[in-house]
């Protein structure tokens, strides 16, 4: 009884020191988030408001998208619509080619990961440089992000030092974090100067004003958009909110939930092109309209990618991002992976003990654990249920549906106590991997009641 997630996780846990550090680091972020949440008396009201705003916007998406487009165009922004990742990648390439761009700097965007933009651009001869420090380190190391907000937190500074020494000429032997950050800063500065276009994601799109809001801690989105004249924004259609009043709610929640800060260091509003420049916004669907029509799972569209559900998830913290087969890990990733491709990403559905902690940290109240429970119910009809689990469930259901057989079986259960230890603790008994076998008592409660011994 295993899945790819459980197998990768078992492998990951073999290095206890690494695993413990990972758990402590991310629980530390959860604790910082808790302190923020407990500092605001109106915290639960904010969550309620955020949930309500997202519910409203997502269920009135067509109107808000039109409003957003009209206002953005009024602001001098070019607006494009992409139905799927192929269309999106083609639009980006087209814009870049028509401006004779050879090199692009990018601030962090999960949407571009989702659409495999970098691979697509590189295949077409573009040089793509990630400018978020974590993302840049991963790009240089040819690794994928293991978390959506802190993508390289699992990489140690010694590894980063080695990577820089190999790829950035003149890097000295020191692995001091301040020094390494300084090296990265100088290296990135050169990239910003040379780039012909800057790409950003969008944390929020504001319909009433036709602008996008990008939140970063490093100012790299601002560098990416202040030096090159061409700015391309990639935005999932679910990132829309109605107006500034709504923005005020999300602005207070995002960084508190994501990293335990009151606010990100930079909250930049982009409302139009720079003088002499050009700004494009690409609105990407890529399956989102389908999700909207899914009664069981549409609430995933409320997600604002803060990562709080990962930080609190006891399974994520102990298995790390790479144990998941979808690029977004943790509770929201389990759900988004299934919505992307059920046959490809069903292995992650096992990665949940149904503790419901994610439901309680989520700032927009996505019913994450309930949705995972629902996916589990679908696995059998998709042909992906575990045969052993199915056998055990059927056997249990038979017993429980026949009280006479059930009580009879219980009377025999204590025979387990007398079985040879080698049999009970063998690999055939999956419980024995982490547990010593329990002892069955002489009488069940049922039998004691029958015998009037209570």
């Amino acid at each position, binding site marked *: 009884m295993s899945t790819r997630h459980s197998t990768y996780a078992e492998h990951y846990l073999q290095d206890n020191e690494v695993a413990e550090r990972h758990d402590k680091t991310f*629980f530390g972020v959860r604790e910082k988030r808790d302190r923020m949440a407990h500092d605001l008396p109106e915290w*639960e009201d904010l969550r309620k408001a955020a949930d309500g705003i997202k519910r409203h916007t997502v269920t009135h998406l067509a109107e808000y998208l039109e409003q957003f487009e009209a206002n953005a165009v009024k602001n001098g922004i070019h607006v494009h619509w992409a139905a799927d990742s192929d269309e999106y990648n083609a639009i980006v390439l087209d814009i870049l080619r028509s401006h004779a761009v050879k090199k692009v700097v990018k601030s962090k965007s999960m949407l571009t990961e989702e659409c495999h933009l970098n691979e697509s651009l590189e295949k077409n001869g573009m040089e793509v440089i990630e400018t978020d420090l974590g993302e840049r380190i991963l790009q240089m190391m040819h690794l994928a992000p293991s978390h959506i907000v802190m993508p390289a937190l699992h990489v140690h500074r010694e590894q980063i030092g080695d990577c820089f020494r190999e790829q950035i000429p003149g890097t000295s032997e020191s692995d001091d974090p301040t020094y390494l950050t300084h090296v990265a800063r100088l290296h990135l500065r050169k990239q910003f100067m040379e780039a012909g276009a800057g790409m950003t994601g969008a944390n929020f799109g504001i319909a009433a004003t036709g602008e996008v809001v990008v939140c970063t801690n490093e100012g790299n989105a601002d560098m990416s958009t202040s030096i090159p004249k061409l700015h391309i924004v990639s935005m999932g259609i679910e990132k829309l909110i109605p107006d500034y009043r709504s923005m005020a709610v999300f602005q207070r929640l995002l960084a508190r939930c994501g990293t335990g800060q009151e606010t990100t260091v930079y909250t930049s509003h982009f409302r139009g092109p720079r003088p002499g420049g050009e700004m494009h916004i690409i609105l990407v669907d890529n399956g989102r309209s389908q999700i909207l029509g899914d009664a069981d799972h549409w609430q995933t569209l409320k997600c604002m990618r803060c990562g709080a559900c990962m930080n609190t998830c006891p399974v994520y913290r102990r298995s790390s991002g790479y144990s998941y087969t979808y690029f977004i890990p943790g509770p929201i990733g389990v759900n988004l992976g299934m919505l992307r491709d059920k046959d490809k990403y069903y292995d992650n559905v096992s990665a949940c*003990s149904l503790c419901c902690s994610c439901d309680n940290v989520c700032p927009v109240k996505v019913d994450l654990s309930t949705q995972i429970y629902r996916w589990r119910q679908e696995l059998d009809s998709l042909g992906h249920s575990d045969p052993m689990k199915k056998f055990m469930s059927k056997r249990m259901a038979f017993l429980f549906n026949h009280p006479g057989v059930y009580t009879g079986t219980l009377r025999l259960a204590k025979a387990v106590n007398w079985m040879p230890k080698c049999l009970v603790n063998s690999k055939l008994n999956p419980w024995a991997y982490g547990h010593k076998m329990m002892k069955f008592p002489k009488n*069940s409660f049922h039998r004691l009641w029958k015998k009037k011994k209570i």
Partner: protein
Amino acid sequence: MKVGLFIPCYVDALYPEVGVQTYKLLRSLGVEVDYPEKQTCCGQPMGNAGFERLSVPLAEKYDQLFRDYDYVVAPSASCAAYVRVFHPGQIRGKDPQHECMASKKTVDVVEFLHDILKVDSLPAKFPYKVSVHNSCHGVRELGLSSPSERNIPKFNKIIDLLSLVEGITVVEPERPDECCGFGGMFSVEEKAVSLKMGSDKLRRHISTGADYITGPDSSCLMHMEGVAKKLGLEIKFVHVVEILSAGL
């Protein structure tokens, strides 16, 4: 007041003493208690494993067996939560007109003592230090204590009740409501993660210096006890009800 006692399958099979003590405690508080003999399981093991369709007949049976009692009391928070949260949807899926009576009257024994009987004194003595295991469904589905994630006034019904016991010292571990990693078939399907969660939780309980780990769910206790014995970690386990009924 007539109470139907729900003794979930694994309590019936492995921890009959928890059922016996629940019965004795309720009787000592003057409650009329009945035990419908045809009961078996709430269906949670199959539901969590992805086979809820196999447990729907159990939900229907449960509703028939228990619908006429004033309350249904179970000494297992997770099972009571499953009945309350999942049964209505399961039965409605089959018969949209059916009103699930037993589900809304089902409570965990801690809730029953704390919220309904409002017990404010008990004759029990338990001269030991106990570390409280706030099990997930008790905290986040039944509201036995305030979830650490939420900014709501702090409370803990388990601790309120344990405080009535003479001689007891009650503590909570660090990360007081982090999951122990049981999760039904999760514990065998994700065995490595489950074992790590279990051993982490145990070490946090043990570092409080407690003699016992206590909680409202024998399932979490069963998991942690199995892990403790496998790893050779020393601590004892006792269900909350066994403490509250000590001496009866």
